């Protein structure tokens, strides 16, 4: 498993723990305070956990490029995507929880969108039929 996939998957598991802890606080805490954190609970679990785990596993497990290096595509955009995705989760989640102006939440969502575009750009050429992209017999790689 490449180190970037480890980073995504471990952060996803931490988001799951944080989101679940916040969910327990929503039910057990003082409702006037606790219920305000519902948007952060949802953001952590849907984007921070579900989406981030899918990104980490996809980066690790999708077919590698047969003739290009690095075999999993450039690492820098994926590293950047990790920052954008997690920054976006916290900016949007806290923004919605604390009632910040819409542009602040929009900034968080834009950050998440940029992360999705970067990861999708990496994954797209790696989603291919078995054997596609490999050099044919007699062809120089």
């Amino acid at each position: 498993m490449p180190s970037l996939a480890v980073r995504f998957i471990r952060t996803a598991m931490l988001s799951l723990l944080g989101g679940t802890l916040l969910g327990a606080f929503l039910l057990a805490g003082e409702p006037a305070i606790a219920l305000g954190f519902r948007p952060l609970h949802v953001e952590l679990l849907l984007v921070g956990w579900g989406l981030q785990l899918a990104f980490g596993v996809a980066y690790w497990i999708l077919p590698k490029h047969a003739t290009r290096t690095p075999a999993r595509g450039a690492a820098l955009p994926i590293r950047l995507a990790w920052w954008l995705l997690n920054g976006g989760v916290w900016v949007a989640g806290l923004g919605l929880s604390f009632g910040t102006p819409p542009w602040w939440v929009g900034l968080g969502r834009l950050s998440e969108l940029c992360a999705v575009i970067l990861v999708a750009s990496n994954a797209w050429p790696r989603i291919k039929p078995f054997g596609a992209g490999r050099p044919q017999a007699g062809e120089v790689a």
Partner: protein
Amino acid sequence: MVALGIGVVMAVSSPGTRAGLPATYVHLLVVGWLTQLIFGVAHWLFPRASGDAPRGNEGLGWAGILLLNVGLLVRAVSEPLALSAARHGLLVASAALQLAAVLLLVVHIWPRVKER
């Protein structure tokens, strides 16, 4: 399937009679299906923990799955009930069970998320 069945009930029932059902529906899908499926696939697919115990401490995994499903069941039963102190106590208990379950499952899978 249970979540989707609740979805059908929500669609055909009046707003007054479906209080609590939307939250139950979401939790059954996200926790009961998605999260449980993820941990199941991770248990099968992730790199081996060690030669002696390739899938790590399976007892943690079993305990996690048990707590997760008991917590989910308690939640699914208590969430649609009318507001009361008893319902609130059950909801808090279900949240505690699910939190403990997630903690066990993360501790179980964590060592297998590693570079080769």
